[in-house]
Structure formats: C-alpha cells, structure tokens
C-alpha cells in the first residue's frame, strides 16, 4: 500500500505481466484521473465473473475510477455479488464475514491511524443491501453511532442476488421474487434516514445514471470520512437476473427508477459543507 509499493523496482518492470505494466504507465496511481475519461486510461479493475450487463458491476467500475487515492485505499466487501469484482482490482481488498464489514472496517481504520499517523489511508466498505441492512444491520448502525471515520457504500439490488433471489429489507413492498412468491409485505428500509439519525456526516441516495455526479459523490464521501465521521452512499444497482431486466435496458431502468423513487438526495452537516466549499475554492484558485 502506498505509491512506493505499486511502482516496480528498477530492472524488474520488463518481467512483469503486461496488465500490471499498463497500470503503472497508463493507470490512475499517483495522479488525479477524470472519470469522464473512462476508456482513455487503464483502469485498476480487472476482468471478473459478474453477470453481463450488471449495473452493480458498472457501479464497481465507476467506484474504482473515482477513488481520490487508490494507492492508499483499502476496500472491504463481503458475501454478495459485488465482491466478485471488488476483489479483482489493484487495490487491497478484505473479505469480511457476511454482516461484519463495518466492524472490521472500524478496527482497520483505527489501526491504520496508529500505524501510519502521518499518512492518509482511506477505508471503504462496499456491500449489498442484505449485507448492510439485514444481516449486518447492527454492526453497520453501531459503526455509525460510534462515528467511525470511513465510508460505507450500499450497492442495493433490492434482493439477495448471490444466493438466488430471497427478499431483503431493501426489496420494495409488493415485489414478487423467486423466494418471496407471495410478494413482500413491508416497505423498503429507509436506509439514508437511519444513516442521518445515527450520525453519518455525509449521506447520499442515488441511481448511478451520471458518471460525473457518481464520481463526485464517491470522492466527497471519502474526503468527508477522513476528517469528520462516517459517510454513507445508497446506490441503486439493479439485479437484471432476479428482476428480469433485459441487459441492454439496465440503464433505461436506472433512469426510470431515478424519476420514480431513487431521485438524487445529498445530505451533509454544516461542517462538511464548509469543508467542500473551501476545497472547491482552492481548486478554482489553482485554475
């Protein structure tokens, strides 16, 4: 971890696999890449076994391209679809037991502060709706109550995708799933409201239909977590298999859901707002 560990030692580069060398020469390490240039640079995410046309896989792609400091980031995931891609990137990845991601991330964030007091290390949890709002609910909530300084991103496909279609607390009311044949009886858990009540300093709900906005939110969440407290992003990342969405229509679906019940919402504390205003002012001065 750290730029020094990513760069190959002199004389060694020619023996490394091409994908790694491309990453050093054309990748995002040590520089700030603009996600709107996706397709122009070598991405840190590699090939992975997530389904064709998966919107969660798409989100993971944008996520890795949005990290403010990929060489100093640790990503935590758990059982569930996203980890199939999260684990295939040139960023250290920790596989937490199902449900305990936010407890592991709490310990890790604190340990990094002790081990590297003068360095910035980012810890980000990326886990499913089941992982964070059902089985990991108490550990997610308690990490927020304790004001642990890391980012939690919920990739919400409104189902247990990886295990074949059980309903989750985040499935919408009335929806019929393979293993909820009578239709779900309860409303979606109001995850972002809970996050605000529990003390998150930056909370966003979004459907990732704009790369620019998604990247901005991910960077903001990570930067705010460095200084102020827990941050949370709730992203709609459909499961085209369990919800029978034709692959070529997943973007259309994401846009429709954005109009319906996944409209963009961004909450932050006054302190965080001032911090972003300050950073944005500095950027303009640099220009």
């Amino acid at each position, binding site marked *: 971890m750290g730029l020094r560990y990513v760069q190959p030692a002199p004389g060694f580069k020619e023996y490394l696999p091409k994908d790694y060398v491309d990453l050093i020469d054309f990748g995002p390490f040590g520089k700030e890449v603009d996600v709107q240039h996706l397709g*122009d640079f070598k991405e840190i995410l590699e090939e992975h076994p997530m389904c064709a046309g998966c919107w969660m896989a798409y989100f993971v792609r944008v996520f890795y391209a949005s990290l403010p400091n990929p060489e100093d980031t640790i990503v935590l995931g758990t059982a569930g679809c996203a980890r199939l891609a999260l684990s295939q990137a040139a960023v250290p990845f920790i596989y937490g037991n199902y449900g305990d991601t936010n407890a592991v991330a709490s310990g890790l964030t604190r340990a990094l502060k002790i081990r590297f007091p003068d360095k910035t290390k980012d810890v980000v949890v990326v886990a499913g709706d089941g992982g964070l709002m059902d089985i990991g609910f108490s550990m997610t909530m308690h990490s927020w109550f304790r004001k642990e300084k890391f980012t939690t991103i919920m990739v919400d496909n409104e189902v247990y995708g990886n295990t074949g279609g059980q309903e989750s607390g985040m499935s919408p009311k009335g929806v019929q799933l393979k293993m909820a044949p009578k239709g779900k009886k309860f409303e979606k858990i109001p995850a972002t409201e809970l996050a605000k009540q529990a003390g998150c300093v930056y909370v966003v709900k979004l459907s990732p239909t704009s790369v620019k906005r998604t990247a901005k939110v991910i960077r903001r969440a990570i930067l705010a977590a460095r200084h102020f407290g827990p941050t949370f992003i709730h992203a709609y990342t459909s499961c085209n298999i369990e919800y029978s969405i034709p692959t070529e229509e*997943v973007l259309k679906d994401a846009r429709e859901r954005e109009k319906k019940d996944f409209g963009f919402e961004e909450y932050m504390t006054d302190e965080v707002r001032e911090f972003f205003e300050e950073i944005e002012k500095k950027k303009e001065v640099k220009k």
Partner: protein
Amino acid sequence: MYYVARVDEEKCATYKCKQCTLFCPEANTLMFDEERNTAYVNEPRCKGCALCVYVCSDLLKRDCIEMVMVTAEE
C-alpha cells in the same frame, strides 16, 4: 461462438462523443482511441450485454455500434 459489440469506426469518428465508454459495465473493454478518434471494443473482454448499443442507438440516435457473432478463432 459468442456475441460481442463492434464499433463502426469510420462512423464513430465523425462524432467523437465518447459516451458509450462511460456506460459499459466492464473495465478496460469499450475503449477510446484518441489518435483515430473512435471508440473500439476489446472483444475478448466484452460480455455482449448491448448496453453500449442502447446508449449509441436509443439515446443518441447515432447507430455506430452493432452486436455481432464471433467464433473463438476470429
């Protein structure tokens, strides 16, 4: 045999819009060549979802990408 996206590079170069590259779910797959001004597909990585066709044809009405069947030898 499998299904992949293929870019009509001549047509694509007339637009240089770089929108499809922002929506492919796969990393390092639908790339943009700055010199030739066109998007192109790294075919062995393409999973054949046709999302890029939706972006190019349905949203932008530019019709520069089509899905084609290829064999492993091709």
